[in-house]
């Protein structure tokens, strides 16, 4: 139980992690992340890298959709822009990995800002339609701009190389992807402690009064699009190094829906929600796959029977979340924390 927290300065009250308990848990979590590659096999490291890439992209979409209230169904296409940027840079120029990833972020940010232009005039479903249209245009470019993207055959990407270390396998890439995810999530949390993050939320909640407070709507909406796309671009760049081949089919439209679902399941408008949503959406299919594997000795036809069931269970879980916990996993987390703070006085 915690009675209260004593703070003596405003700076202490504005801190991101403001209690000692929180800092201890955080330190343990980071320790766990460091020890993780030494304790599990290749398969789980592969999953961990994929989760980290999804966390980056989901956090980006959360900035745009969850915090700024602009629904986008183009996140996968933006990731594609990032992935192609990295692939082309590697194939043509052979520039260093870290630089490529950053360039991928900036190029995608530019594309995102362009796609965001209609957002001053259209909102909600109409904006979602506009982003769908943009993502089909991007997909068309990936498939048909043969001289750059090599059309449907795609581009092979050489392994990442940082400070002379070649990173080809998940066990190595883990040390590139996870730090990126951590830094970008922390940066997003910082953003919402300052005037810019507050302006995003203000636009979501009531754009008219945001304008009266001196927030230029178009500039901030474009900034949100650009930032969100920067996250997608970096995630796409890492994706390219992770899967090592980029084709137009790598970033299907359904992948954008995956990210939107992750934001909603995790909790719109909370940083934690983006993380939890990405983890949930990536892990649950894997866990269900494992469950099928465990059952197969008992039921001889398990794979044949349960594989379709797996998809249904996954879908049902998402619907269940929308109905019973509209504020997402982040809200469940918050309630659990409150329970332990108040225990044993109120349950």
């Amino acid at each position, binding site marked *: 139980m915690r009675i209260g927290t004593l703070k003596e*300065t*405003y*700076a202490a*009250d*504005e801190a*991101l992690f403001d209690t000692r308990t929180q800092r201890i848990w955080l330190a343990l979590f980071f320790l766990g992340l460091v020890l993780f590659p030494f304790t599990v096999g290749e398969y789980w490291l592969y999953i961990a890298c994929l989760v980290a890439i999804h966390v980056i992209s989901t956090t980006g979409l959360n900035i745009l959709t969850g915090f700024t209230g602009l629904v986008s169904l183009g996140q996968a296409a933006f990731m594609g822009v990032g992935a192609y940027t990295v692939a082309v840079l590697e194939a043509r120029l052979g520039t260093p990995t870290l630089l490529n990833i950053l360039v991928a972020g900036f190029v995608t940010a530019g594309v995102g800002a362009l796609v965001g232009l209609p957002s001053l005039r259209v909102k909600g479903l109409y904006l979602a339609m506009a982003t769908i249209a943009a993502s089909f245009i991007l997909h068309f470019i990936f498939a048909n701009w043969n001289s750059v993207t090599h059309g449907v055959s795609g581009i092979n990407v050489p392994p990442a190389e940082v400070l002379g270390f070649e990173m080809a396998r998940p066990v190595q890439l883990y040390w590139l992807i996870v730090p990126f995810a951590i830094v970008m999530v922390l*940066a*997003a949390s*910082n*953003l919402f*402690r*300052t*005037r*810019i*993050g*507050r*302006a995003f*939320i*203000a636009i*979501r*909640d*009531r754009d*008219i*009064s*945001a*304008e*009266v*407070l*001196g*927030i*230029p709507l178009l500039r901030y909406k474009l*900034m949100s699009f650009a*930032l969100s796309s920067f996250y997608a671009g970096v995630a796409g760049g890492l994706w390219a190094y992770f899967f090592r081949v980029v084709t137009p089919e790598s970033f299907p439209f359904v992948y954008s829906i995956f990210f939107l679902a992750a934001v909603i399941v995790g909790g719109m*408008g909370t940083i934690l929600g983006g993380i939890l949503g990405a983890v949930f959406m990536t892990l649950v299919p894997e866990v269900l796959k494992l469950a099928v594997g465990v059952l197969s000795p008992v039921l001889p036809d398990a794979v044949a029977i349960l594989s379709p069931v797996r998809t249904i269970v996954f879908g049902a879980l998402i619907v269940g979340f929308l109905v019973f916990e509209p504020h997402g996993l982040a809200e469940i987390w918050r309630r659990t924390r409150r329970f332990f703070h108040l225990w044993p006085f109120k349950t």
Partner: protein
Amino acid sequence: MSIHAPLLCVDAVSLSFGGLKALSGVTFDVAPNSITAVIGPNGAGKTSLFNCISGFYTPQQGAIRFAGEDITKTHPPHRAKIGLARTFQNIALFRGMTVLDNIKLGRHAHMRTNLLDALLYWGRAQKEEVELRAEIEERVIDFLEINHIRNQPVASLAYGLRKRVELARALAMRPKILMLDEPVAGMNREETEDMARFILDVKEEWGVTILMVEHDMGMVMDISDHVVVLNFGTVIARGLPGEVTQNPDVIRAYLGGTDVEALQRRIQGREAA
């Protein structure tokens, strides 16, 4: 009336929506450090006038000057920056945020943190945020007596408190002129008196000029220095509160008759008009 140059001049402003004339040739001045009330029956054009001054509507004719600058065609964010703040009739707070974050947003236009600072939360961003917090706590939150709700989400607050938070947010803008759209509508007697006290204190302690639209005649007569009466989009009277209530046009607009006694009874009876 003040000997100073007016802070805000509304000069022959006309606004129409298609064939509907919302405002025609509205002219009045707001003297610095005064409380000016705009009154009038429903549909008289009070809110349209406010929307012209804060930049949502651009009048077809006429000009609006603020501290000597013609702001008729500037965008709302620019007006916020030069010191125009307003509240809304149907509270326009950000429901998903805490009281503290709502108030912090008031200072948006005066802060400098850019995107990179914000992502890193280093140097300027941190310094600015902590200074802002201190200023808001010590000047705004203490002043409006809302310490106990500062960390609550706005959505959970009672109506009267929300109105107060909206005033707090407007004050955080460090305005030169504060425009209040029906600051006490829907409030009970006690809340109304609190709000009247805050408005007077804002004028006295902060030196802020106030322009308000209000239906509560009792409060208007008690605290305003100058009253402008609108009816069907035109100014039918203006002057000191006492003069305006004697004006037969005003009485006709409000009561549909010429019964001065009845209007005065209403004002003394503190009934909402």
